[in-house]
């Protein structure tokens, strides 16, 4: 890092910090839905990535519409909402048709949802074609802020970050302030009891799963601003998402947030000093190593069994 002025290094430091943060928010958006489903229900949703792709394609469709009716500046917000609703609906359906039969067999859910992901990928390919598509982004999402001459803060990054905050906050409200959240937590704590006190645990499961998928949809919509949309896009995200969730200790949303932050910082710093691909390998290795030492994840609390 020598041969650069303090100012330059300062600027890079700022921007590097930011890219760490935006990676953090990306990972968080990816993992949040998964964390809810996995953490609260112990179900592995291998099709998580495809639900993100679903959200992304929804956004693309909206942008096509928006372009024809010249609404490019406004459509994005609606696209995100639609992405959520659609993914939620599909998730709801999937839980009803598929997942609810498999709660006793987590490993089988993993296989079944993998099958689901194959099917969804093919549906995307058949409907939208094999080639990648891109959403026409509203002008206000393009370019970058320039606090000083040499610092660029990507607007889409900021947007994703904002969205991540909103969604996370929303999830917290839902989980810890709403009656629904109460029921969810009750069901997780003790399914039988919850049922006994008149909570419709089946419905709780369904909504929880659908919610997780919905959030995946939102994530997918957001990612159209920073990455690609194709039939197999989902598979780019799935492993990262799982790493975040498992690393965070599936039980807690706090854990997920913390681990997303940790992984993001590690990766963005390593990728700055090593080559990008080696940086990624190093990060993954670190995660696996730590998981071997602390299997229950970073933030799982010691419980009385």
């Amino acid at each position: 890092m020598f041969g650069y002025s303090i100012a330059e290094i300062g600027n890079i430091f700022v921007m590097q910090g930011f890219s760490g943060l935006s990676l953090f928010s990306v990972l968080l958006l990816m993992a949040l839905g998964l964390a809810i489903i996995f953490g609260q229900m112990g179900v592995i949703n291998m099709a998580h990535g495809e639900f993100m792709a679903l959200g992304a394609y929804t956004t693309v469709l909206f942008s096509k519409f928006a372009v024809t009716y010249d609404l490019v500046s406004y459509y994005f917000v609606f696209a995100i909402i639609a992405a959520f609703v659609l993914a939620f609906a599909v998730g709801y359906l999937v839980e009803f048709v598929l997942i609810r039969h498999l709660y006793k067999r987590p490993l089988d859910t993993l296989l079944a949802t993998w099958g689901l992901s194959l099917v969804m990928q093919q549906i995307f390919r058949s409907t939208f074609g094999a080639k990648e598509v891109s959403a026409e982004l509203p002008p206000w999402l393009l370019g970058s802020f320039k606090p000083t001459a040499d610092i660029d803060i990507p607007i889409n990054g900021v947007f994703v970050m904002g969205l991540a905050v909103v969604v996370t906050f929303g999830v917290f409200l839902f989980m810890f302030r709403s009656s629904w959240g109460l029921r969810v937590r009750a069901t997780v704590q003790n399914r039988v009891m919850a049922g006994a006190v008149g909570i419709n645990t089946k419905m709780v499961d369904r909504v929880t799963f659908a919610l997780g998928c919905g959030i995946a949809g939102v994530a997918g919509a957001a990612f159209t601003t920073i990455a690609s949309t194709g039939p197999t896009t989902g598979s780019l995200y799935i492993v990262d998402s799982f790493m975040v969730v498992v690393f965070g200790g599936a039980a807690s949303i706090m854990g997920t947030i913390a681990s997303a932050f940790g992984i993001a910082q590690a990766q963005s710093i390593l990728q700055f000093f090593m080559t990008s691909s080696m940086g990624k390998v190093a990060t993954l290795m670190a995660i696996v190593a730590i998981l071997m030492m602390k299997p229950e994840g970073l933030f799982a609390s010691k419980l009385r069994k």
Partner: protein
Amino acid sequence: MKLLTNKLFGGKQGLINLAILAGIIFIVLPLGLDLFRLGLIGKYLTYAFVAVSLVMLWGYGGILSLGQGIFFGLGGYCMAMFLKLEASDPISTKIQTTPGIPDFMDWNQITSLPLMWQPFQSLTLTILAVVLVPTVFAYIIGFAMFKRRVGGVYFAIITQAIALILTILIVGQQGYTGGVNGITDLKTMLGWDIRSDSAKYILYYVNGLLLIGTILVGRYIISSKFGMLLLAMRDKEERVRFSGYDVSNFKIFIFCFAALISAIGGAMFTLQVGFMSPSFIGIVPSIEMVIFAAVGGRMSLIGAIYGALLVNLGRTMFSETYPELWLFLMGGLFIAVVMFFPNGLAGLYVKYAKKGKFNALMQKIFPSKASFEQGAEEVSTKTTGAKA
């Protein structure tokens, strides 16, 4: 002695079905198919090794590894490295800046054979490596995880991550590994042209024999106390632990054994297909191999072989006509198997076939285990009928 044969052949019935399998592999298919199709079968049978390993690991041990591709790949790479060195003798590589080393090294400015490659100049060491490298690697992973009681979903996901890491590494270190192209253009083994028709037949039969051998060993393990303990662990790990067993050791062993089998499959793959690439180590192939086992019946060694054969034949036939449909089918298969017949073909049989006296008795003596074995064997007979 009688006891031993029972253990190996799973009783009269088991012996019959093993014979049938052997019949299909060694007689029916070679007579019925042209060399090209037979080559495909040979390839599928290398996947069958992994499927069998997953039956023992997942079906019996309840340990789902989504990284069996790692071991298939390691085995395959070890073999490929040997063949590649033989293929890149100074004469045939004289156009290179440094003749005598594999072409991809030359392209990456590597001027001498890396240390890591040295052992693979000897076939003996290579075969040792095929056996040891994956097993030791499995031991390290297994030790780290099972001693810390990482299990179930966590184990599945971590193995997946390891598969991913390995892929990125191999692709990234192309100077030493051949990168994403893998190790290609393998020609001879100790001067013996592995691409010739005769070689293809010989390799096919060797492959078949190894597979049958694997089944026998597998059956021995399953029918031993070890096998009973595997089942016990899968259902009541705590209880086994509090019966004075060090559960982790058993898991490590079965994981290593599964790795070993997969590696043999990988090595045979390289020999028959003539190359090895990272695309076998990754997540997708690893999960597909689980479905082979699931389709055949996760509790049935022989079923796994039929599973591997059927799924791959299906893939080949469908993707020749309508590729789209195939992906739907594959996806559907995953879902259907899990939801409607979790014990695969074997389970289906047990469910629907009318049970003979013998079968009923087996039911009584060996509830879950044997009946599925039983079922698979029967199913195998049926599929035979279909194929022959």
